[in-house]
């Protein structure tokens, strides 16, 4: 993986700058824009379905009807949805996501404070998953139907069948309440990261393992693997150089999609482990009916997901020369 990263950066830096990869990235970014506009509108629309009168909620029980009408006008809640959306987009571009209904704090500020925590958690989890799952998937495929493969596949199936919040609770019972090795929640140094990161990593590890195995199985049956062997390429090198790269092409897509699952899982894991990230913030905000905060959280989540998928697409183009070709 590290090797790839280095090579990948090298490609972008020296060889292809101003060339195909750059064009490809720009193309992808341009495609991303309308999707993001659409997504924010969609989320905005869904949130606007919230029943109840926001203004009276903010003002509390003692508010006069007059004041409520006034506030509604002030907040622009009487304008058509599309105008409200335009206004929101306008301030969003300036990095302003409004203020919390609950405590009047800046939404962007709150999210900015918590985002690094979620980032730390999800990145650790995805790195863990990739590091564990790709070797297991590859070995399983090269030793198809061996004990290792059978056991690995059973575990992977169980892995995708366990809800993350339950795994979290079980890990807390075992490793924190009984053994006392790790804290059961909160964020206090590396030790507190381990349990939540593992919890979050299990499901994606399982499904990336399954994908890697099946695409590897597909690849090692291809003719070009025989060509490589017939050249005298050693067994290990056939796998690492000729098979893995081609097998990773479909696996990478799944890693991207898994990241979405992981972000959803983050909401649950953060809740279980009282991890101060935006997942937990979102759940709390929903309970407090703090609409701007909820909207902010979901937008940041979605944006992160899209950026990860953009990176995945670039990696994809690097691995599969046929894609780069289309942008020459």
């Amino acid at each position: 993986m590290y090797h790839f990263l280095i090579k990948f950066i090298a490609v972008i830096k020296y060889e292809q700058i101003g060339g195909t990869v750059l064009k490809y990235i720009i193309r992808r970014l341009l495609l991303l824009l309308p999707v993001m506009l659409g997504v924010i509108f969609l989320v905005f629309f869904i949130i606007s379905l919230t029943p109840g009168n926001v203004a009276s909620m903010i003002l509390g029980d003692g508010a006069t009807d007059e004041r409520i009408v006034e506030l509604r006008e002030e907040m622009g809640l009487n304008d058509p949805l599309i105008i409200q959306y335009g206004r929101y987009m306008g301030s969003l571009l300036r990095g302003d996501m409004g203020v919390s209904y609950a405590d009047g704090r800046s939404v962007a500020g709150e999210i900015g404070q918590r985002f690094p925590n979620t980032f730390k958690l999800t990145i650790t989890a995805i790195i863990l998953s990739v590091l564990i799952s790709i070797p297991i998937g590859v070995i399983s495929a090269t030793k198809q139907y061996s004990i290792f493969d059978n056991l690995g596949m059973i575990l992977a199936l169980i892995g995708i069948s366990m809800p993350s919040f339950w795994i979290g609770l079980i890990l807390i019972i075992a490793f924190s309440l009984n053994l006392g090795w790790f804290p059961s929640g909160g964020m206090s140094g590396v030790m507190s990261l381990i349990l939540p990161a593992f919890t979050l990593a299990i499901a994606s590890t399982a499904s990336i393992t399954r994908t890697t195995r099946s695409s590897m199985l597909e690849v090692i049956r291809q003719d070009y693997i025989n060509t490589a062997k017939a050249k005298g390429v050693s067994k290990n090198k056939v796998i690492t150089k000729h098979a893995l790269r081609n097998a990773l092409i479909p696996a990478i897509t799944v890693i991207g999609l898994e990241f979405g699952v992981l972000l959803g899982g983050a909401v649950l894991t953060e809740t279980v482990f009282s991890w101060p990230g935006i997942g937990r913030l979102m759940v709390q905000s929903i309970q407090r009916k703090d609409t701007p905060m909820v909207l902010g959280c979901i937008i940041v989540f979605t944006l992160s997901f899209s950026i990860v998928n953009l990176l995945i697409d670039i990696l994809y183009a690097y691995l599969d020369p046929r894609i780069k070709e289309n942008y020459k």
Partner: protein
Amino acid sequence: MNADVLEIKTEQLLKTKKRSQLFDVWLRLKKSKAAIAGLLLIGIFIFMAILAPVLVSYEDDALKMNVRVRLQTPGSDHWFGTDELGRDIFARIVYGTRISLFVGIISVSIALTLGGTLGAIAGYYGGKIDNIIMRFLDVLLAVPAVLLAITIVAALGASMLNLMIAVGVSNIPGFARVVRAAVLSVKDQEFIEAAKAIGAKDHTIILRHVLPNSMAPIIVFATLKVATAIMATASLSFLGLGIQPPTPEWGSMLAGGRSYIRDHMYIVLYPGMAIVLTVLSLNLIGDGLRDALDPKLK
């Protein structure tokens, strides 16, 4: 050949092909121990869901609080123990099966109907319509599914109906894509051309000829998606955004028992196992079906 004969022939061809195919699939499925285990397991859960009133009493065991017997460890009186309010955990799990299977199946049906329609239209007509639908799906797909479901429930409010809508809608893009791909793969085959040639209407062609012949991947996908939907239901309920207490739902049982895990781990152990086993059985069946339907992939 006149049109009627052609139609009859096409019908016959389709029927024989379908029947023997299904039979083959069953033969291959039977060979997979994992799939059989999954079928047995889900059978037990379905059995529990149907016979729930016979096994336990909803009012007395699953709902009524009884502080005198709260937090009892598993034993002969209470197989899985009792929770913080003295309710029998086994009874609640049994009734929870009803909820989970019901919500799982209904939300997948919602996704299948809406997503399937979109996908079938996109695949069958292609061109501009396809393009518009696919761009819309791109937007839906850009929000991670669980987060989309959470957002929908957050807006509509937590209730069983809203939960099913939320989980259903968040699964629309997946079904649309699968159905679209399936439709594309059979669209240009001869019998479709034949049906077109005898002037059948578009929706008849889609419903009677295209879909039945592209069922295989859709069935596999739906089976796997019921598993995810059950998981999502539990997740949302765990967050307090799904089924509300005191209704016995596995996820909300875990949420309720969370504070007692230090001394009473069984409170979260058994409901969690119920989730894992249900989801696992559906995944086993889904995998088995996929291999049985597409033997070359094994």
